[in-house]
């Protein structure tokens, strides 16, 4: 079976004079999946989305969205996409309903179809109560839902969300996540950028870790985590026992344990799947180290991110986000 890609970019570059926002970005987002571009501010995420949504022309490489080349056939791309981001926003001086009707009309829907599309989106996103108030008076969370709704007037096959929940409180964030998941279940391909590792972990089928205009590592969240290994942490009763515990963990994993003298814990990265929690406890027990607490947990995406960016200088990952 061949995979069709909703978004495909090869060696995408964008330079502003001597500044290189993108330095050969490769992406392959299968149709119907959710891809998370994860990276800090200035990593090039927004530039990538601007190019893929035809807002900015690349200075090198090429990109296909829904099968159309973004530079050669931007009009076809625009018919297939929806965009929501800090730069593609709604008009705060209009009501929510007026906004959605305007964008529906501009998306090519005529008369009553523009009205019914707008009303349908208002209902879907639970914006009915505020719909006829001017959008600038809305709460941040509702405004973001309106942004998202405005991105859907085209019934897009590919939806781009640039930092969809930045600055939102947890409840509002959860609301957006639910909406994105529902869209994904309906078959919409979603490409979202985020600085929140939790967001990428919760929503994305695939994550592309982006830094300095390149994809440093890509894959399913679980695969990325496996790449980094699990984290074992044991707690002992006294400071003198830390060294003993560290020696055991060192022998077991071959990695360098980290001692925390305040919390009386020793932590270590576990790459070998055969090393289980019972085995760690058994080994410590045999060595006579009294353990008060022990756990083995998968790495957080924060750790993944730190690891990948740190490793980059020594050994850049070549894999695209597949």
């Amino acid at each position: 079976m061949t995979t069709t890609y909703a978004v495909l970019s090869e060696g995408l570059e964008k330079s502003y004079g001597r500044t290189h926002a993108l330095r050969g970005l490769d992406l392959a987002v299968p149709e119907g999946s959710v891809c998370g571009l994860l990276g800090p501010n200035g990593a090039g995420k927004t530039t990538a989305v601007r190019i893929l949504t035809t807002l900015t022309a690349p200075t090198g490489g090429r990109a296909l969205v829904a099968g159309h080349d973004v530079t050669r056939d931007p009009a076809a791309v625009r018919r297939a996409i929806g965009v929501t981001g800090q730069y593609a926003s709604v008009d705060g001086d209009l009501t929510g309903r007026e906004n959605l009707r305007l964008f529906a009309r501009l998306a090519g829907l005529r008369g009553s179809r523009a009205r019914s599309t707008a009303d349908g989106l208002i209902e879907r996103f639970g914006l009915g109560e505020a719909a006829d108030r001017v959008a600038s008076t809305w709460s941040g969370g509702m405004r973001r839902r309106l942004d998202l709704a405005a991105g859907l007037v085209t019934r897009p096959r590919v939806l781009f969300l640039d930092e969809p929940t930045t600055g939102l409180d947890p409840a509002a964030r959860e609301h957006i996540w639910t909406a994105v998941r529902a869209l994904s279940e309906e078959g919409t391909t979603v490409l979202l950028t985020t600085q929140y590792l939790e967001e990428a972990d919760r929503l994305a089928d695939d994550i592309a870790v982006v830094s300095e205009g390149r994809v440093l590592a890509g894959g399913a969240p679980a695969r990325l985590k496996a790449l980094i290994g699990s984290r074992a942490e044991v707690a002992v009763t006294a400071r003198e026992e830390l060294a003993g515990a560290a020696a055991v963990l060192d022998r077991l994993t071959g990695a360098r344990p980290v001692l925390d003298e305040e919390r009386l814990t020793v932590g270590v990265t576990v790459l070998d799947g055969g090393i289980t929690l019972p085995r760690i406890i058994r080994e410590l027990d045999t060595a006579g180290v009294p353990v008060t607490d022990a756990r083995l947990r998968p790495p957080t995406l924060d750790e993944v991110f730190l690891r990948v960016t740190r490793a980059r200088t020594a050994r850049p990952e070549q894999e695209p986000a597949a």
Partner: protein
Amino acid sequence: MSTLLYDGAAVLTRQLQKARHAPALLILTQTMPITMLLFFGYVFGSALAMPGAEYREFLVPGLLAATAANGLMAGMFTAAQDAHRGVTDRFRTLPMSRTAVPLGQTAADLLTTGVSMVPLMLVGLAMGWRIETGLPGALGALGVLLLFRFATAWVGTYLGLLSRSEEAAGQLGGATFVLPMLSSAYLPTAGLPGWLRTVAEWNPISAVATAVRELCGNAGARTAPDAAWPVAHPVAGALLWSVVLLVVFVPPTTRRFGRGGA
């Protein structure tokens, strides 16, 4: 073409809805020239060599021309605000006509300007200003004013797209307040020192103000024999100025909308 008109109408509707939600701004833009008419008409009018009543007759067309020239500020502000707030980029991601946005915006501006000139004219009539030439003259004057407004709104849109910041547009907007001062809108140019007189007479606002005076049969229509061409032939001059501004600024404005931000 039908997409252009349909999308342009959608953008025009948007601009009118905005005006409906924020009527204060519309009222404010009307009170400004009326205040100036009263202030200049009676304060300056009492100190000028020209009799006060004649000066007020001279002044009303000047303020109408200045109001038309304000399309510069209006266009700039609208374009900069939309760019800054991300509305422009939302438009750019939609499968719509690129020319529709500036076209719809300038067309809406034309409608609101037409309406906002009415109170100014009414106050002018109350102060003794008359259209001596009947309906054809009135329509001619309105045509000249609205065409000039349309042209300056395109110039403003272009500058607003360049600046992309509401603050910069606001600052530049302040400068547009000075432009009518350097024209025959408020005072005759005959008494100005040579170089300043040249600048003022080549100022498009002078041609428009003089054209309205001529079309309405008001004082000040007859200019000095050595006046610059646009004010010596004010109607042709005003129309030509508007056409030149449109020819120069419409193509780069639509191109800029189409190209997208850097």
